[in-house]
């Protein structure tokens, strides 16, 4: 393999694919990035065997070929001094020479034959498929991913449930202490269905996607979810677990609904959390007509603060985890938020005034 390409382009693409690199693997080739050139296109591939990322760059390659270079290649390319990079591989021993400006690296490569084959994206075999704007998918992931569990003893809750129905995509995540559910308008979809995607993979999707109108093509083939976005091909294994039916635990009737200024509410909880974080993370909310009193205490002291609200229906005394409230309030875009109350020691729901389809259910601490 012998090719020349702009240093910036290669560094950018390597930054994307190396997100799939494992920290350590029993297969040494998996710890590297597969460089594969067919003469016109250079493909970069990385995988941790759970998820894989492949990007493509148009190049003018003098000689085609393949090599696996160590994960460190990202750092090497990022620090190269020249505007362009020339890569040539000795096919006998895979010794790879990287030239840029006055710098010359010789990197020990591995045989590409030892690299595992990534699951193939064959759209005609897709069980389910859909397309969505990147900005919409990013918003939905931002709204749900933080509510996922990290508890490996309940694997179903370490994923986000995707449900395709009526040309929309519903995303649900829960760690059993709170639940986040949102919708995404789809550009197109095949049939209705649902699947569970590991949150770890979706965190990387969130980092790779940009907030714009570009369309992401998605398909479920076998036990893999494939996403195609510009020159990036992303694949992840799906979780083979049953996500419980959470729809029945989402309250449909409320005894009261408070409307609050988001910024006001956020800053008050942040202040209360300064003390509660030292202890049990609990903030007590006394919701009454016209105002809400927020109280928290720890060994450092106490705080009590009143904030104005508009209340329809009954108020309540409730204790919530401050961190859970902050997770949602920090991503709320509307200047108002709604707190729907179902009674003492019962779940409450937070909503964003700018996106009322987004629902965040928080379970209280028993008083």
């Amino acid at each position, binding site marked *: 393999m012998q090719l020349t390409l702009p240093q910036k382009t290669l560094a950018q693409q390597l930054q994307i694919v190396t997100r799939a690199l494992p920290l350590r693997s029993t297969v040494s080739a998996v710890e590297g990035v597969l460089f594969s050139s067919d003469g016109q296109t250079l493909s970069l591939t990385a995988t941790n065997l759970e998820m894989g990322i492949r990007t493509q760059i148009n190049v003018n390659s003098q000689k085609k070929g393949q090599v696996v270079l160590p994960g460190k290649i990202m750092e090497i390319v990022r620090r190269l001094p020249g505007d362009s990079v020339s890569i040539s591989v000795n096919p006998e021993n895979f010794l790879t020479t990287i030239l840029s400006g006055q710098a010359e690296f010789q990197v020990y490569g591995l045989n590409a034959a030892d690299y595992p084959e990534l699951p193939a994206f064959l759209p005609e075999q897709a069980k389910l498929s859909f397309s969505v704007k990147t900005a919409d998918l990013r918003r939905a992931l931002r709204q749900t991913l933080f509510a996922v*569990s990290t*508890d*490996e*003893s*309940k694997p179903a*809750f370490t994923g986000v449930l995707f449900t395709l129905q009526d040309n929309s995509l519903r995303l649900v995540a*829960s760690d*059993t*202490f709170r*639940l986040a559910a949102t919708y995404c308008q789809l550009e197109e979809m095949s049939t209705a269905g649902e699947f569970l995607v590991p949150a770890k993979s979706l965190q990387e999707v969130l980092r790779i996607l940009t907030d714009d109108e570009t369309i992401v093509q998605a398909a479920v083939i076998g036990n893999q979810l494939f996403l195609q976005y510009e020159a990036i091909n992303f694949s992840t294994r799906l979780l083979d677990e049953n996500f*419980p039916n*959470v729809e029945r*635990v989402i309250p449909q009737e409320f005894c009261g609904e408070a409307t609050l200024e988001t910024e006001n509410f956020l800053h008050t909880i942040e202040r209360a959390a300064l003390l509660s974080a*030292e*202890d*049990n*993370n*609990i903030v007590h909310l006394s919701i009454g007509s016209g105002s809400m009193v927020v109280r928290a205490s720890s060994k450092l002291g106490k705080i009590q603060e009143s904030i104005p609200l508009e209340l329809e229906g009954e108020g309540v005394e409730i204790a919530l*985890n401050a961190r859970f409230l902050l997770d949602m309030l920090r991503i709320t875009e509307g200047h108002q938020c709604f707190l729907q109350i179902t009674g003492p*020691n*019962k*779940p409450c729901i937070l909503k964003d005034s700018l996106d009322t389809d987004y629902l965040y259910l928080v*379970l*209280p*601490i*028993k008083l």
Partner: protein
Amino acid sequence: MRKQQEPDYLRLQRELQVGKIRPVYLFYPEEDYLAEQAAAELVKKFFPHAEAKAASAVVDGREHALTEVVAMTDTVSLFGGSRLLLVKNAPYFAKGQRLTKELLQRLLVKNHEACLVFFAPEISFTAKVVKELNARGAVFRFEPLKGYALQNWVKQQLAAQGKNISGENLTFFVERIGGDLRNAANEIAKLAAFLGEKKEVTKESIMAVCTRTIQADIFALVDAVVYGRTKEALFFLRDLLAAGEPALLILAMLIRQFRLLGEAKELLAAGENDLAGALKIHPYAAKKVSAQAAKTSMSYLKRAVELLAQCELDIKRGRIEPVLALETLIVALGAK
């Protein structure tokens, strides 16, 4: 005769069988597999319906204050019912940790529907809160199983798989797989799968599927050396090396075994009856060492120690390649 105390894992099993579930458990998991197994049984008993199991959670105690953990347990459950929280690496009961009287009260009188299980790698048994929990029977020590308790546990696990084992084969199995319960559980699963419909565990079935531990192999190696079966000893040595055991580790185990032999010979000569207690080894190992000691003379043991020391020196000074050094040593030890 002093009545043998019931191991805590059996006490917990007995409590669960009669439906007794405590609000707080303090597990001291010296044998972590036993503690995990107990916790799994507790979860099963606490949540008879599979879906409700979502209300159980595992958290790392190093990442949460005790007050936060208590608040998590007291959080309303998503699917109704009560919560059960398993707190791994709970540091709250170690020496130097301060638990206030208020917190102790909260732990003990907290809502009895929820259940909190602490896995504490370090426990200060003189701490007031631990004493209080201990007095209520909420402290469970999961100690490594030895001798009869280990055999009893293996027998129980085999019975759970519908398999029977004779006393002799049970001893053979335990000798072969060692005292690590996680490893033992894997070997039992292998054995059950191998036997299929057959009920009786035979020596042949154990030999066919159960992997020997390095300890068991070293016993076999020393046995072969001491009884002059050099060819067999070399076979065991190659087996150990092929299994990836480092040559220096094998040498260290040989040195330990010959040191035990020397000590056993002296103790037996002095009329010691409890060899296992005096050498702090498993009764089965003591029985083996005792038989080997009877077969060896003191002059042979002295020469063996010299050969072992020389072998270690030669390897460490780089005079000889380690595998060749071990082979030479085995041949020399075999020449009586």
